[in-house]
């Protein structure tokens, strides 16, 4: 082909400039869209606490899939199921055509999340394991989902509650720490150990977790150890509709412990079993035990 250098030379330069601008603009948009683009519309939650948070952030209509164990709030039970926490069905997740899958580090398999990413699925990993890290996690979630305002409200609520207890704590520093034994299940005796949200709540309120020396999160506990180092209060969490009846046996076995003898036994719900919006209620419940 023949080029008429003369007349086209000027246009070439112009073209190149145009092309450069186009590329730069595309580049900006290319980066910007993921960061500032539309928040996810079809979310799959692979953990019950995430589901609860999504409902609290008022984005429940964007949820397209939950696990078999997502039972709170009631409405969550009507969402399509994709399997368990440790063994969700990849097919079920993908067939829902989500644009965001949310997982936790505590209960979901890492390989599953890696697999999702290798299939070019957008994922969000909930990393907080302790109450102290919860507010900032809430904020990240909020900005990702485009509901930063609501997330901020929740986070502030939590921070205020935490700060309040902290200040009360420093005032009562001189008090001897009371020991709490948090019973998850009475027969066999399973308690909350040190690496749990329950432990966070207990220490936050200025008390000591009787079972803090156990190495695992929910250890099967020695009855003798309870007798040797008796707690001041036994808290029994709700693992079953009729915990009072179920716990009769263990309380009788532990009748020698002052807490059991004097009825320093408190029944609470399962608010502290998940790192979710109900932890505030959980802390309040725990506090109420001592009043």
């Amino acid at each position, binding site marked *: 082909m023949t080029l008429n250098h003369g007349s086209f030379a000027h246009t070439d330069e112009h073209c190149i400039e145009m092309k450069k601008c186009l590329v730069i603009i595309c580049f900006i948009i290319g980066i910007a869209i993921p960061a500032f683009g539309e928040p996810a519309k079809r979310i799959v939650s692979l953990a019950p606490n995430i589901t609860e948070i999504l409902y609290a952030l008022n984005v429940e209509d964007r949820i397209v899939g939950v696990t078999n164990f997502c039972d709170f709030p009631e409405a969550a039970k009507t969402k399509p199921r994709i399997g*368990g926490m440790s063994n969700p069905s990849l097919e079920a997740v993908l067939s829902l055509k989500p644009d965001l899958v949310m997982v936790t580090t505590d209960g979901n398999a890492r390989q599953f999340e890696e697999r999702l990413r290798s299939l070019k699925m957008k994922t969000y990993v909930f990393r907080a394991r302790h109450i102290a890290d919860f507010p900032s996690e809430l904020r990240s979630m909020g900005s990702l989902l485009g509901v930063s305002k609501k997330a901020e409200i929740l986070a502030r609520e939590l921070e205020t509650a935490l700060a309040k207890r902290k200040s009360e704590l420093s005032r009562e520093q001189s008090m001897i720490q009371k020991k709490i034994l948090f019973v998850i299940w009475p027969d066999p005796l399973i308690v909350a150990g040190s690496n749990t949200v329950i432990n966070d709540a207990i220490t936050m309120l200025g008390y000591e977790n009787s079972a803090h020396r156990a*190495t695992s999160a929910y250890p*099967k*506990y*020695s009855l003798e150890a309870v*007798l*040797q180092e008796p707690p001041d209060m036994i808290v029994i969490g709700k693992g079953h509709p009729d915990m009072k009846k*179920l716990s009769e*046996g263990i309380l009788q*076995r532990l009748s020698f412990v002052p807490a059991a003898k004097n009825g320093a036994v408190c029944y609470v719900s399962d608010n502290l079993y998940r790192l979710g919006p109900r932890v505030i209620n959980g802390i309040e419940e725990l506090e109420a035990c001592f009043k």
Partner: protein
Amino acid sequence: MFQIKILFLIFFSIAAFLCALFFGPKIILPWTLGDIEKEILLSIRLPRVIVAFLMGTALGVSGAVLQGILRNPLADPYVLGISSGASLVAALGILGGVTFLGNSTIPVLAFLGAMMSGGLVGMMGMRKGGLWPERLLLAGVGLSFLFSALLMLLLSISNDEGLRRALLWIFGDLSMSDWDRIPYGLIFILSGLALAMSRAKALNVLILGDELAHSLGFSPKRERLLLFISVGLMTAAAVSLGGMIGFIGLLMPHIMRFFFGADSRLLIPASALGGGSLLCIADLLSRSVLLPQEIPAGVVTAIIGAPYFLYVLRRKDVLSM
């Protein structure tokens, strides 16, 4: 010679019982009893050690009897699927949150499960009015696989917490032993033991073979059935008291045969004492090693038992019982 060995075994059993009672996890000596110590000793440790001894007795004797009636050195209560059936029903109860009998729910379910699977195995092993060793063994192994598969299915669809509790029970849990459970355990295990002892001669001739047993004036079918019933009673009681604890039924008869010979009239009581002592010690370890946590007793017996089993395998006369 035998008298010395028997005396030694009796002393050893008493020593094991006392060690388990006083030594772990914290040493409590009988002469330094404070109120807490007394409480711990009487309400927690004593029932627990008694249950451990009873369970060990039941498992040891069941192993000895089964190895005789099946003429197989690898037979033990677990091979016959009695405990897998019990575990399946118990797991169903644990995961289903069934609590109609309060704290006795799971033991009762386990007992029923054991009786049901024992009955099933017995029925499948019957032919022409009698229990046949080969059929019994095959039926037991087959049912054991089936129950284990169902159990695995159940566990795979359960939530983490239920799964954990079910597994803790399955791997042997003596932590909730209390005085209430002991009478029932005692009745079933002692009846089973008495029945087995009364058929000890029959067990001896069954080992010789059905035809020789008949020649010596015994009815092989009837004796095998009675002995199988004794095993069913003892195993069901043992599993319902504290879950699945392996290796004792398999190994204790071999160990006792080494010291006392194969005559069932000695082997049965020896396996009873040996099994009881072993489980007392295993339970002592299970509650002392990882304080304040407890590891399942079944794990301890497996850790002790498996290497010993492999060692026994290297000896040349392992094929003979």
